[in-house]
């Protein structure tokens, strides 16, 4: 059932387009990396602030609020380039354990950010326990690192 979806995706016009010219995939890949820099940078800016490592003299509420806007831009860039990349090599990904690691970590990351981290961080950080803020930061950095690193490993094992 799931495999037939991946086969359909690879045979779809999008999948064909991604495979037609080798440069298409490479260019989309490069834009995917730009999205990674933006998403990773805004994750690190927020989380390292919550851990009191950087931007200590800027209120953490300001940092998380501002950085989250560009986090969303980074995430959309990654999703909009990630789907075509998947379409180009869908059946390969289906059999790739790193692909599934990444997808599970990604689902956890998105759920974590939008249902837990951001709703919590929208309130005044002074009213939250410092340990809670630090825990959020460490969890966030861990999950996004796993998403990014397992993503890179999809390409090593084909």
């Amino acid at each position, binding site marked *: 059932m799931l495999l037939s979806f991946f086969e359909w995706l690879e045979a779809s016009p999008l999948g064909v387009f991604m495979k037609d010219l*080798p*440069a298409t995939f*490479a*260019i989309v*890949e*490069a834009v995917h*990396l*730009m999205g*990674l*820099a*933006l*998403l*990773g*940078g*805004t*994750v*690190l*800016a927020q989380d*390292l602030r919550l851990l009191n*490592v*950087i*931007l*200590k*003299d*800027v209120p953490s509420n*300001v*940092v998380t609020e*501002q*950085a989250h*806007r*560009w986090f969303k831009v980074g995430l959309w860039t990654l999703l909009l380039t990630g789907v075509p990349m998947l379409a180009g090599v869908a059946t390969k990904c289906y059999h790739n354990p790193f692909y599934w690691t990444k997808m599970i970590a990604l689902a956890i990351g998105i759920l974590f950010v939008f249902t837990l981290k951001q709703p919590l961080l929208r309130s005044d950080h002074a009213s939250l326990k410092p340990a809670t803020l630090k825990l959020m930061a460490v969890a966030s950095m861990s999950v996004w*690192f796993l998403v*990014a*690193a397992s993503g*890179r*490993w999809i390409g*090593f094992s084909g």
Partner: protein
Amino acid sequence: MNSALLQFAEWLAASSFSVGLHESFYLYNWIETTHVMTLMLSLGMLAVIDLRMLGVAFANVPASKIAERLDKPMLIGFTIMFITGVLLFTAIPVRTTQSIWFRLKMLLLIAAAINAWLFRGYMLAAKNSWDLEAVAPRRARVAAGLSLALWAGVIVTGRFIAYDWFDCGGDNPAFIDWAAGCVVAE
């Protein structure tokens, strides 16, 4: 020039250090992974600084504060990028030396460094006049836009090194072989 570079690359490729890096699946791939993951620190911080200069992020925080506070993490990132980059080159020296993408990437890196250096001086000299404004003066915006464009080019050319479209010895137009510095075998 090109044959001297090739000679150096061949000497490096023959060293046991290079062979070891190249042949170890986990070592090579983890160096590559570290290089890519560190994009998040180096170019991530750079993007935040440049977006602040363009007035589209952290507009409610003084520009110099963002630039000065994020400078250190960004430079730590660039240091890791440099070290892992040198190791990646060491692992595959001959092919990389004759890669048109690697050469373009080096040129873009130099251009980005010059741009950053010029802008840094300008920012330090003029920061008090516009620090609190949401949008920086035109010159700072141009430098920030140029910085983002040059680094995007570094990402593209860096990623393209992995592809063999224009490898020496292939069926390439003459100017590609010239730009890649392909040395004709004697």
